């Protein structure tokens, strides 16, 4: 009978955050045809696409209008002030990448006739009310990518 060998093998102890666990979208023009949205965010503007043919305002931004199939759009500025429609606070069960932020508020924000989901910064649950005015803010990742949030206006 041959002797059975026991061997230890090694795997990397840490790995770079893989793309499949990254919530933030790739945003440059090499990876998406709506990179303008992110370029506008970098200038402090929250925008979306409006169809030039049927005039429908679309969220999220598109390259084809689901209403009339046109692919001609203009970018429309949605403004910087939103109204809180509904909200909660994540206390348990946050996903990888957000665990360090717990507790944090998320909500639905009315702005320019749209209802956008967003993190609501500068607030605990008890400090917020439906109907509160919120201010647009932009967050930037260490690699330069950006995304939008809203924040409670202090003092309100």
């Amino acid at each position, binding site marked *: 009978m041959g002797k059975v060998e026991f061997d230890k093998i090694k795997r990397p102890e840490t790995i770079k955050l893989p793309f499949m666990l990254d*919530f933030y979208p790739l945003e440059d023009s090499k990876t998406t045809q709506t990179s303008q949205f992110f370029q506008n965010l970098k200038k402090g503007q929250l925008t979306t696409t409006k169809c030039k043919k049927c005039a429908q305002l679309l969220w999220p931004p598109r390259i084809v209008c689901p209403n009339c199939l046109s692919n001609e759009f203009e970018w429309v500025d949605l403004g910087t002030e939103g109204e809180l429609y509904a909200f909660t606070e994540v206390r*348990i*069960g946050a996903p990888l990448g957000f665990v360090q932020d717990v507790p944090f508020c*998320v909500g639905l924000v009315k702005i320019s006739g749209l*209802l956008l*989901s967003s993190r609501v910064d500068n607030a605990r649950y008890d400090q917020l009310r*439906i109907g509160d005015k919120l201010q647009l803010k932009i967050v930037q990742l260490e690699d330069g990518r950006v995304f939008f949030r809203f924040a409670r206006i202090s003092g309100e």
Partner: protein
Amino acid sequence: MRKVAIVGGGATRCGKREASWRDLVQEAGKNMFESVHNISPKDVDSLIVGAAEPERFVFQAHVTPMVAEYLGIMPRKVIARTELMCASGQAAIRYAWACVASGLSDVAVAFGVEKMYMPDMTEAHTNMSCVLDREWDGINALSAPPFFAITAQRHMHEFGTTEGQMAQVCVKNHHYSSMNPLAQFPKEITVQDVLKSLVVAPPLKLLDCSGITDGAAGVVLVPAEDAKKYTDTPMYLIGSGQASIGNTLNNLASLTEWVPLKMAVKEALKTADMTLSDIDIAELHDCFTISEIMEYEAFGWCEKGKGGKFIEEKQSYIGGKVAVNPRGGLLGCGHPLGATAILQAIDILQQFRGEVPQGRYVEGAEAAVTHNLSGPANVHSILVYSR
């Protein structure tokens, strides 16, 4: 179209199981085949497997051939997997039904499986965060609990629904799951237990939420004309309705009124040639307590906004207006995504056969609906079964 019957079904016990995905499949498969006379794995010509996220939970794709291999099935008509998140199992039944109804398949198995417990549960929560549009809604950590918390808050704001009323849904469903040996949570609880449980995302507490669950289940579908070859007590699939509106939260029809559910109800009753009062049992998708309250309203068992009152008056208990979730619901039994709709179907079959314990038996039931919602409640799926 041929009329279709379900002639048997089997499942695993649900919960945090000391079992792998592959173990769950085999356990449910054995129980399924042992529940039907005169059908062996080699008779099955089609296999549809409802599995929501095996790539994430067990790092495995192409799962239907794997189920086929473990169960000794060699499909020769249709083999496919269905993914419709929390309704993946119902999607499997619907596909199997279509296969048999069309004449393509003579013996089809609709199977469902999910292994959701992982060594690090943060990973499981992460898996549940790419259900909503990940780039626009998931990015805000909107997995199921925060989304349904927002829904509940709005329902409370608009209609005066209370946390106490929501808690009563959980109390009812645990009452019934206490009599279900397959249930993840087979014990009675009180309103105080719910209200004092850990806050997950206000206004939702831990007991407002259905569980993270391991489980599997399967049912066998055949043409109605062949059903008596396999059992004296088949159950017939006589109607269906399914509708979807929007996907990102901006594009939902409404947060507090589930319009696609109302559409699906209408279609389901029409195809079954029934009215709402013909339905004796409703297995509704109580992924959260608020869901069941909104489902009473959308089905039309009560007025819009009066769902809280409906449970308060115990109208959804056996003996009330309609028996809702006498199986114990997702709140009591757990929610192994791909398996959930199959578990609902098996329980209806056992109800019709009088095989459930007395305390949760709906005597003389002739017709039942099973319902599943998925995603941000933008998709609603209903099947109608009769004795």
